[in-house]
């Protein structure tokens, strides 16, 4: 029994190869004759495997715009972060207060779930004005608004095909012209699952939206365009171009400042496997 108690506490370090050689041998010989400890070790190994699987699915590095943000704050004066902490501290209760007020209003008659269901039904039409209005002044804010409007939840890129199995797409870690993947999101357009992803190159974002080709959209003043030999539609506000290119099942939307040349065509082809070269494309 003494051995059992002692070994039980050594199983974690044994699994982590953190024991001294003598202790390792002691545990190994105990395991050979103790089914209970072998069972415990198997359980710990299974947990470690599960964590490892989760970790390897999310091996993404720091977003490229992080250094830009740090550098901006350093330029503004080092050591002033205390003020920012206060702002964040205030932001939480203010957000809480605003949201609680909204929830109280909804909760009088409906449950939170019913309210959410109603919002999701409204969201069956994708409203790109949420993204494009105000984009020139604050592109990051515009992207955040769009993600918030469509209930975005951060996901691991490897999980994207399971999140939206009806869509045809790639979300590579890096796109042509040096854009690096920052974060993938699950979004909901009504009951239709969609995806979004933010990329970044030297602090400049590129935003991708993927949705069912059959969904209705509100695109404002869209115009037809050619990107290489791809047909598409585009909305342009200032330097920002939101391009929509249809594949067989999926509409691939790319928001960027890229001109309609080879670079943008390469980006579309990188994310849209069902948009084959030379194939005629339906207008969106």
């Amino acid at each position, binding site marked *: 029994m003494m051995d059992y108690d002692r070994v039980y506490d050594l199983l974690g370090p044994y699994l*982590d190869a953190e024991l001294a050689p003598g202790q390792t041998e002691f545990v190994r010989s105990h395991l050979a004759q103790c089914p209970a400890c072998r069972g415990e070790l198997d359980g710990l190994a299974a947990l470690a495997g*599960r964590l490892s699987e989760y970790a390897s699915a999310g091996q993404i590095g720091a977003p490229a715009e992080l250094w830009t943000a740090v550098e901006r704050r350093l330029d503004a004066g080092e050591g002033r*972060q205390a003020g920012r902490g206060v702002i964040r501290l205030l932001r939480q209760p203010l957000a809480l207060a605003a949201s609680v007020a909204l929830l109280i209003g909804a909760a009088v008659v409906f449950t939170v779930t019913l309210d959410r269901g109603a919002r999701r039904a409204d969201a069956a039409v994708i409203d790109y004005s949420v993204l494009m209005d105000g984009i020139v002044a604050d592109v990051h804010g515009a992207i955040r608004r769009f993600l918030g409007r469509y*209930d975005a939840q951060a996901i691991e890129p490897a999980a994207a095909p399971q999140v939206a199995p009806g869509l045809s797409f790639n979300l590579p870690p890096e796109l042509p012209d040096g854009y690096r993947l920052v974060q993938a999101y699950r979004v909901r357009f009504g*009951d239709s*699952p969609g995806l979004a992803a933010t990329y970044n190159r030297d602090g400049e974002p590129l935003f991708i939206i993927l949705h069912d080709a059959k969904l209705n959209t509100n695109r404002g003043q869209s115009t037809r365009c050619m990107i290489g030999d791809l047909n598409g539609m585009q909305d342009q506000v200032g330097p920002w171009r939101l391009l929509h290119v249809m594949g067989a099942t999926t509409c691939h939307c790319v928001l960027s400042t890229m001109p309609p040349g080879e670079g943008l065509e390469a980006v579309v082809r990188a994310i849209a496997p069902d948009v084959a070269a030379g194939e005629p494309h339906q207008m969106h």
Partner: protein
Amino acid sequence: MNDQELIRRCRERDRSAQRELYARTSDAIYRLLLRMTGDADDAFDVAQDVYVKVFAGIDRFQGDSDVTTWIYRIAINEARQLLRRRRRYGDKLREIQSAAVRETPADAATAAAVDVREALARLPEYERGLIVLRHFNELSYEEMARVLDKPAGTIASALNRARRMLRDVLDDRVAREAEDSAASGHLTG
């Protein structure tokens, strides 16, 4: 450039040296923060705070530990402060929002990842930090002890406890899902 030279130049506010120190450490620090907070926006914000503190406080770095360990220590403290603030002000809202999200069948395939993320979120901050440092940042017990400023001999038992807590949370979720599934089958079958 070795660490000593890098730190010396960072103390002189040499921007290229600051960028180099950031480049050497930021992926690991961001990963730590992402797993600790469970939220990319929070991880982004906290990572900024960490590096501003690092460069503002580099004069106080004594050199008695590795500079990466020192940055890890700042990062884990910042993450724990955020979690405490979140608990104080935001938990109720998050619970309501989380409860309002209904999983669709398409979500089922990501359930394993969701399980782990949610289970981690239920651990107390210290235990979550132990799991993240060991399993996601792959620190040794000795490195963990330096980051957490704890005696090396306490890490093994604390990590054992954290793993058992995590396993209990995961088992509890599996059991609840099995119950829900059985109840659902009974109703529809």
